[in-house]
């Protein structure tokens, strides 16, 4: 089986040489055509070496198929007009397709499709097999956020810092359910499977900030599980690796617009924002924050950060969604269902809290969304790295 395992490396290595894209060969005209087609098709910018090549295959397939479709469409419409029914009960000649026509169409199309498969598969291998000496970064998906761990112990949350112009190999895994690391601008995607490492690599062409999406359904927070890739010039990246923590202003000086990539936190409209602030005040006044922290560190009661919408296992083993109903029940009758691993000594607030205050607290808990500070660097997946 070893031979089968190494085969992809062989193909990819031989093929990595000609990474110049076909259109680029045409120089100025090719580039203008490439940008025009990209804009028409709503494709994001081609920020990685891989992106330009994939788009060429995209234009090639799209163009040829539109041609075939146009020919077929016109033939269909022309027949509808040319052979419209002129008289009732009109008889038609018996026309049977010659075998060579059917086989010709089948053979021609099969050859074309297999040719596309060949290009597509070679590009796929090119994307999957990282060149030697690529920077390895561990990507861990966790329910609704991304964590990144670097070889020399540096780690970061939500933002993947990479050197522009150098290949970066990602070893992707997940701590709970299946996620999928997707950078549209690099045209790469790789599922994060819990219990295993899966790999993909890219090389950012220029410095810049690009958005990251999760594309495998992973629960309530799936549509907010966003991240960012920041490509720095190699010098800046070394400074970052050494411990420099740039904020948005520093990056803007480097020409990288960090905030423009993705909208901010949950765009709570005005009325919801006031309710959340009111909820924070009520939680402080009522003494909830004496047992429940809001920054993710475990304490007497479960922390409220990232609690709303998550799944908690009760002492009875029953699994419950932390939604409005469960939070209200926990306030009014806390001993009914206790989260496993916590003492059952929360006082009941029945009659002490009015309904609007309860709603305010829930609204406040909804804003405690997003990254839970990690208790440690991204640990290897459960069961260690497979043999």
């Amino acid at each position, binding site marked *: 089986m070893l031979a089968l395992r190494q085969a992809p490396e062989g193909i990819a290595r031989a093929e990595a040489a000609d990474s110049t894209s076909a259109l680029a060969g045409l120089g100025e005209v090719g580039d203008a055509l490439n940008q025009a087609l990209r804009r028409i098709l709503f494709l994001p910018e081609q920020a990685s070496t891989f992106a330009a090549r994939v788009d060429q295959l995209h234009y090639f397939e799209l163009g040829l198929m539109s041609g075939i479709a146009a020919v077929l469409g016109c033939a269909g419409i022309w027949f509808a007009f040319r052979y419209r029914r002129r008289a009732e009960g009109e008889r038609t000649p018996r026309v049977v397709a010659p075998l060579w026509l059917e086989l010709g169409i089948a053979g021609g199309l099969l050859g074309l499709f297999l040719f596309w498969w060949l290009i597509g*598969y070679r590009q796929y291998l090119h994307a999957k097999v990282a060149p030697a000496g690529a920077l390895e970064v561990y990507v861990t998906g966790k329910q609704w956020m991304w964590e990144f761990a670097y070889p020399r112990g540096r780690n970061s949350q939500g933002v993947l810092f990479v050197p522009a112009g150098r290949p970066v190999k990602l070893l992707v895994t997940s701590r709970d359910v299946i996620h999928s690391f997707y950078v549209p601008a690099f045209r790469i995607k790789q599922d994060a499977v819990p219990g295993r490492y899966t790999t993909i690599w890219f090389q950012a062409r220029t410095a810049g900030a690009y958005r990251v999406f999760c594309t495998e359904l992973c629960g309530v927070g799936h549509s907010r599980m966003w991240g960012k890739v920041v490509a720095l010039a190699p010098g800046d990246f070394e400074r970052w690796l050494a411990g420099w923590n740039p904020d948005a202003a520093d990056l803007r000086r480097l020409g990288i617009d960090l905030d423009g990539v993705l909208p901010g936190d949950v765009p709570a409209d005005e009325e919801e924002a006031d309710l959340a602030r009111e909820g924070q005040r009520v939680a402080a006044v009522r003494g909830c924050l004496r047992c429940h922290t809001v920054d993710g560190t475990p304490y007497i009661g479960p922390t409220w950060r990232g609690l709303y919408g998550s799944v908690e296992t009760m002492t009875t083993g029953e699994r419950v969604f932390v939604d409005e109903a469960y939070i209200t029940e926990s306030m009014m009758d806390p001993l009914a269902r206790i989260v496993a691993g916590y003492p059952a000594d929360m006082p009941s607030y029945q009659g002490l809290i009015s309904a609007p205050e309860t709603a305010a607290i829930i609204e406040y808990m909804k804003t405690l969304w997003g990254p839970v500070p990690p208790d440690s660097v991204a640990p290897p997946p459960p069961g260690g790295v497979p043999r």
Partner: protein
Amino acid sequence: MSTVEVVVPLSRPAGDSYLEVPRGFRSWLVTTDHKRIGVIFLFATSAALVLGGVFALLLRAELLTPGRTIVGPLAYNRFFTLHGVIMVWLFMIPSIPSAFGNFLLPIMLGAKDVAFPRLNRASVYVYAAGAVIVLSGLVLGGADTGWTFYPPYSGRTPTSVAPIALGVFVLGISTIMTAINFIVTTHTLRAEGMGWMRMPLFVWTIYATSIIQLLATPVLGMALLLVALDHAFRLGVFDPTVGGDPILYQHLFWFYSHPAVYIMILPAMGVVSEVVCTFARKNPFSYTAIVVATLGIAFVGFLTWGHHMFVAGMSELDVGIFGALSMFVAIFSAIKVFTWVGTLYRGSISLDAPLLYLYEFLFLFGVGGMSGVALASPSLDVHWHDTYFVVAHFHFVMVGGTITAWLAALHYWFPKMFGRHYPQRVAALGTLLVFMGFLGTFVPQFLLGNAGMPRRYYDYPPEYQALHVLSTMGSWALGGGLLLTAVYLVAALRGGRRAGTNPWGSRSFEWDTPSPPPQHNFTEQPVIARGPYDYAREEG
């Protein structure tokens, strides 16, 4: 648009059709008559289409604005799961085979009934039981895992995954029953003189679909059974904390689900073959090509499931194998499209509603099929997988393909099933509205997918909003078009003009019996002396 009105005096009083004899509601409950079972399935699956459509409109309404529009993220996840489950298993899979297949297969073969009438009745009861279990899951709040139920999330979420998974398992049993019935009927109950190459093409596609249903559904049953056990008793075969491998679930699930998309499209292709030959009054451009392509799809369709897992962490070797095999299955669909367009050549074409739907089918299924071939090349799939490009692709093939063909079948066989005509002009308007609504809904989704908008997203960056608003407005037009079709068809059930035996002047065998047909299909046992499509002039 010239309306075909072959004035044929009513061959016999409408009193003794299968609709009237035997009388009474109770007789419908215990009927083993394949025509009544077909009509029961038609109304049941139409109700499922309406319910699934309601969830679709809710989804599109929620996506009008980024962030919360009408519901929260949890409810949105439940809506698209229920939209998927109801549409796929309660409507798409049974719609054409169980409704039109049940009604037409025995008549087209010249048989009195299907091979096992009691098994046929049981399949109705099992379908009803499965539907009730799935809807009980709906009432309990519905699952939020998507219709794919991927573990480990399907094992962890407290939403009601188990009832819906078991409900679909029971629906699978009903599908296998129907499949066994149709396979045996096609083999043993053909009328005298009907060789395999003289069967109508619709029978071929129902036969091929039954083979796929028979051999693929058990694997789905096992996959969903394991999901239900994992969810209820944490009996995790795919649970990574116990050492399980979630990708193996995907192998089992897609081993069923790719042939399942051929279960959905093959009957639609059968309807298209029938409609194109009747309304162009011409023999099919190549009968053998369509038959070979049908069987090719049925068998090669079982080998290509891996192209759903290119980025799932499958080995590169498998990606290569599945990619190449997927290209083979694509040429069979392409051959069929070429043959249908070829059939129109030198025909005598009358643009009735079924043929308008046929043109829609050719265009939409063409685009859907081609986007499928593009998706099958591995490097493009890395970008497109699980984005709105995939959503647009399979809606082009399922809605643009199967539902358009289902509407064409509904209009084409409406006179035969109910003995009434639908209003021609309103029907033409309906086809236009459905076509415009469809394009408005799903063309923007191709562009959203290119732009990188992931699938199953409740909230999205503001740049995508313009396309989402366009898509939502398109969905209203599509919903309106389908509603209009439902209204005038139900009205025509009672108020439509009476239809003669052969209103379209078709040479296919089901048009030899009166419409609506008597209880035992034929006044006298038919002997087949000609092919089903010989419209040719004597001198050829």
